[in-house]
């Protein structure tokens, strides 16, 4: 009998539910995105997000169960993201998951959203060999993690200021490209010259931490001084600077830790240039690159169910008085 986990994710602006068997076999993955709702505000508005989550949560769960062809009694556990994220949004998913767990008499499993992202790669490739370097890049996070085993992580570095996705959003807003910034810059960059402008590579050769605020300032200053500059060149050169720093550090981390491969995770991992470069360097170094499909990079509940499967295996169920924690950290080895 496969172990079926219902996963629930509401940490930011996606209302999601999924059923995953044995930690990797995705039986259903339903994501109700709020991007259109937040686009006019130029970013995610917490109160608006929470209101949408309440409305969408039960229909999304119902659809995930129907698409998977699963009855509540077939479930091994109900897992939900408990942090980090927007507190009002997280509470919708946690409250829903605990209620379902209580009524269906199934264990409840508390999942760390960052750990869930690390598991997105396992949904599509079960042959991943550990240890792995995972580059987790999203609107809220930029971190380089060494995964030594299930639940065993070392945080090698993280951003000291803006997250990579945040830099994309800010630059896109400045260039008048709208929200979300990632896909807009990615598309425009395809028409520009990535070598046109030599934007700074913050901390490129300095440890594993990241800094993107200087790059963002540099883009703004460049456009201000050169009002006639080709926006496509700016987008391409900005993207080149971000990807260069991310890939350089990830590659060095693989070499220095003896990792077998590189995984990308998080919304920015949907970026075409980053994906291509990750494949290129891994091939050059004779290592494996694993890049989840775009729908598994962005927030989804299948990764929550996958991480929940392993957490349930190691820690057992969480108590029904579990809450949410907006600033939860990745559990790391010391």
């Amino acid at each position: 009998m496969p172990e079926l986990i219902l996963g629930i994710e509401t940490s930011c602006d996606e209302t999601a539910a999924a059923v995953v068997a044995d930690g990797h076999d995705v039986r259903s993955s339903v994501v109700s995105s709020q991007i259109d709702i937040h686009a006019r505000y130029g970013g995610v508005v917490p109160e608006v997000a929470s209101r949408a989550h309440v409305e969408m949560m039960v229909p999304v769960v119902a659809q995930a169960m129907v698409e998977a062809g699963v009855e509540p009694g077939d479930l091994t556990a109900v897992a939900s993201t408990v942090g980090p994220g927007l507190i009002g949004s997280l509470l919708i998913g946690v409250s829903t998951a605990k209620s379902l767990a209580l009524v269906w008499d199934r264990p409840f499993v508390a999942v760390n959203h960052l750990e869930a992202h690390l598991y997105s790669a396992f949904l599509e490739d079960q042959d991943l060999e550990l240890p792995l370097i995972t580059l987790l890049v999203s609107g809220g996070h930029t971190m380089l993690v060494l995964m030594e085993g299930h639940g065993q992580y070392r945080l090698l570095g993280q951003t000291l200021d803006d997250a990579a996705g945040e830099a994309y959003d800010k630059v896109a807003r400045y260039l008048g490209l709208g929200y979300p910034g990632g896909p807009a810059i990615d598309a425009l960059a395809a028409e520009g010259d990535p070598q046109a402008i030599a934007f700074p590579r913050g901390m490129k050769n300095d440890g594993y931490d990241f800094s993107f605020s200087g790059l963002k300032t540099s883009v703004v200053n460049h456009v201000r001084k050169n009002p006639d500059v080709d926006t496509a060149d700016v987008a391409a050169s900005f993207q080149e600077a971000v990807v260069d720093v991310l890939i350089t550090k990830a590659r060095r981390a693989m070499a220095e830790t003896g990792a077998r491969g590189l995984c990308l995770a998080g919304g920015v991992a949907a970026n075409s240039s980053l994906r291509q470069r990750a494949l290129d360097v891994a091939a050059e170094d004779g290592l494996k690159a694993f890049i989840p499909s775009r729908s598994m990079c962005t927030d989804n509940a299948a990764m929550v169910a996958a991480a929940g499967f392993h957490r349930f295996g190691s820690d057992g169920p969480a108590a029904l008085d579990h809450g949410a924690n907006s600033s939860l950290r990745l559990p790391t080895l010391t």
Partner: protein
Amino acid sequence: MLVLGIESATAQVGVAIGGHEGVLASAHSSRDRRHAENLTPQIAFVCEQARVEISEISVVAVDVGPGLFTGLRVGIASAMAVAHALGVPMIGVSSLDLGAFAVRHSPKQIAACYDARRGEVFAARYRSVPGGVQRISEPAVWQPDDFAAELLAGGEDVLMVGDGGIRYREVFEPVASVDFAGPGTAHPSARSLVELAHPRALREEFVSPSEIQPLYLRKPDAEINWQTRDNR
């Protein structure tokens, strides 16, 4: 017909279960705004105390507000999930109705009034009728001063119930016709919710979980700013 009532619109979170015999068990807590932490264990607790299997519940009633958004949503999301998981219908009741219902035997006009933060209150006026209360003004957000003036203009003796009256007592007290219900009715109660919902359940006045709408009464700030900018 067993009704499970879930209430979390104010600083309190509560659950009750009951039916034709009245309320069988209830639990309320109001310490440290631990709505999400406390609610699920409270559901399990009241079922146990009432010696009821959760599967015996036929309707889930929920306080739909107005109230403090984050806590309110914890109750609504939980209630929707319980109803969905059980495959049973729901009944939504306003927090202000619950407040007024708790003092329904008063011969005076009733003003239910909850603290809405930001120097405002959520309020509505009621009068006592056989078997309950009847709303005589729509739930709304008020500046306490304005609501006091409204009560004064009404010229009737008023019994004020809810933590809004307690917090802004110095604003309402000068209105001579206003009297205050005790701190025991500062928050809407899940017991009242079950008592109010049970006859409605018998009349099958229920909705599906997807039809439950929170009564926010306030737009998100971002939407207000956006509309202001757009109208300029």
